[in-house]
């Protein structure tokens, strides 16, 4: 079983590594977008999928990261990729300050507050808060990132940056999922009262989930800013949050492969429907309803955890 998984992993990695060589730059760029949204989806998955917190304002954390990168890069000329930790830190700090007073709110109340935060952030960016965000035009002229002396320009070069970042993300989030922390989040999602009764500090863990998700979204914001070289408030609207949210739920909340598949569908399908022109989003909306009706748990839901008993205790010898 483990061998089979390893082989599948090697093959997938191989395909992903050579894929852009066979595609034109347009489709490589589509893949890049899928990658960015997949990582954003994975970061939201910590909050929505694992902890069960109803966050419809994830784009605000993404925005804080992207604007941190843009402002520090254009004002102080710090190389953009060096700013990745700073972007994560600023988004995480923002999440901590915002989520701290509202973390105890019940599901749907939390939902509207996160939407509200997203709107406030967007309006603040449009109104050129502190004279730093450039108003509704946004910030342009962000430097191209530089990796080991090579400047990344083409979609294909970015593809490998995003792929590498995605691989690190998947690896770390998988570790997180199987850690004590991840199990605590799942417990909290399934039954908050029972989790509290077992000594899990629910407010603390919820806040931690929010901050971890936000930190990651902030770092993705950095890569997004570097890729686009122009960012403006319209990239961080409520609908952006909706797309990330849909990726998580449609793909299968709590499941890493599910979220990635969700990103492929949500970002990729509208590209395939390009021929439909204006009716594209109409079909997309109908597809969202249809997919939820036919796969209510999402396409690849989180599988229940399995624990194998230690060898000798298999056949009913062990007590408990």
């Amino acid at each position, binding site marked *: 079983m483990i061998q089979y998984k390893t082989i599948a992993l090697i093959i997938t990695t191989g395909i992903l590594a050579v894929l852009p060589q066979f595609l034109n730059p347009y489709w490589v760029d589509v893949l890049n977008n899928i990658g960015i949204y997949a990582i954003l989806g994975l970061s939201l998955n910590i909050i*929505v999928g694992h902890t*069960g917190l*109803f966050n419809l304002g994830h784009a605000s954390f993404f925005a804080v990261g992207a604007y941190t990168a843009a402002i520090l890069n254009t004002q102080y000329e710090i190389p953009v990729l060096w700013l990745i930790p700073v972007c994560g830190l600023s988004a995480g700090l923002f999440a901590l300050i915002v989520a701290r*007073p*509202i973390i*105890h*709110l*019940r*599901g*749907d*109340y939390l*939902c*509207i*507050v996160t*939407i*509200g*935060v997203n*709107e*406030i952030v967007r*309006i*603040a960016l*449009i*109104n050129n808060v502190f004279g730093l965000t450039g108003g509704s035009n946004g910030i342009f002229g962000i430097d191209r990132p530089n990796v080991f002396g090579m400047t990344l320009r083409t979609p294909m070069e970015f593809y490998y940056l995003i792929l590498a970042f995605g691989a690190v993300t998947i690896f770390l989030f998988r570790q997180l999922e199987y850690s004590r922390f991840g199990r605590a989040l799942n417990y909290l999602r399934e039954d*908050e*009262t029972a989790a509290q009764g077992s000594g899990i500090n629910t407010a603390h863990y919820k806040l931690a989930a929010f901050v971890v998700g936000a930190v990651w979204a902030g770092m993705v914001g950095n890569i997004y800013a570097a890729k686009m070289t122009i960012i403006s408030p319209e990239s961080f609207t*409520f609908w952006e949050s*909706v797309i990330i*949210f*849909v990726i998580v*739920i*449609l793909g299968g*909340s709590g499941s890493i492969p599910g979220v990635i598949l969700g990103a492929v569908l949500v970002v990729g399908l509208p590209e395939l429907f390009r021929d439909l022109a*204006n*009716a594209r*989003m*109409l079909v*997309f*909306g*109908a*597809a*969202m*309803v249809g997919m*939820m*009706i036919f796969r*209510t*748990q*999402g396409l690849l839901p989180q599988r229940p955890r399995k624990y194998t008993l230690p060898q000798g205790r298999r056949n009913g010898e062990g007590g408990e």
Partner: protein
Amino acid sequence: MEQFLQQLTNGLAVGSIYALIALGYTMVYGVLKLINFAHSELVTLGAYLGLTLLTSLALADRLGPLLGVLLLAVMVMGLIAVVGAMLDRVAYRPLRQSPRLSAVVSALGASIFLQNTIMLIYGARYLNYPHDILPKMTIHMVGIDVPLVRILILCVSILMMGGLFFFIQKTKVGTAIRAAAIDQGAAKLVGIDVNLVVLLVFLVGPALGGAAGLMLGLYYGQINFAMGWSYGLKAFTAAILGGIGNIPGAMLGGLLLGVVEAMGATYISFAWKDAIAFLVLILILIVRPTGLLGERVAEKV
């Protein structure tokens, strides 16, 4: 002082429209625990259908302005109620037993679908309501001149809300709706047809939303296929502000939000108008986590 009173009446008129929309959110939420994100699109549809019927039937010319608009409102409410019931049948009913967030995604999908349907039918441009439907007169009261349309909107909304309140509190069917909202299983056991209750909620809520859409068209004069989203979001905010699932709460929340927004836009900053509304919401929720009139219940999911 005059500006204050003008903004107060303006805020109350807009707030009563918010309240009507908020009632649609809160009723559906009360019974199904579902945020009907497509409700805002029903409001937009109400505004567009109102315009279509107004221009094609020339009701205002034939019946006189007040009677014409009244008949128009009845027709729009009826049509939107049917659309609302269809929406439930297609997008929500198959998801009754599924995880709540899946139903939310279905609602978001339905919202995108309806919004784009409206855009494909009517186009992406702003459309104008005719200027001369309601007489452009003002009424002098408490020292200021208040436009007639403002007073009409406020009065009609209050009438509708009063009617709804009476319906929910005093009639047998209203009692059934309240029972289904408190405990669906128990409601079934005492012989209430919960499916019928849900259908009723999806008729009444959208009907009020359609009326609100028509009022928005008459009040602002311009409609757009994407307009529902911002009004819907405000109305949802109002529903949460008052305590979601609570009908008087939605009314209170709507009026409060309308006034706060109008005052904020005038005295603080117009550019930050929308942000002020959300800031007020967050501050109130920090103090009262279940809204102004929400019950303090422990959630058991």
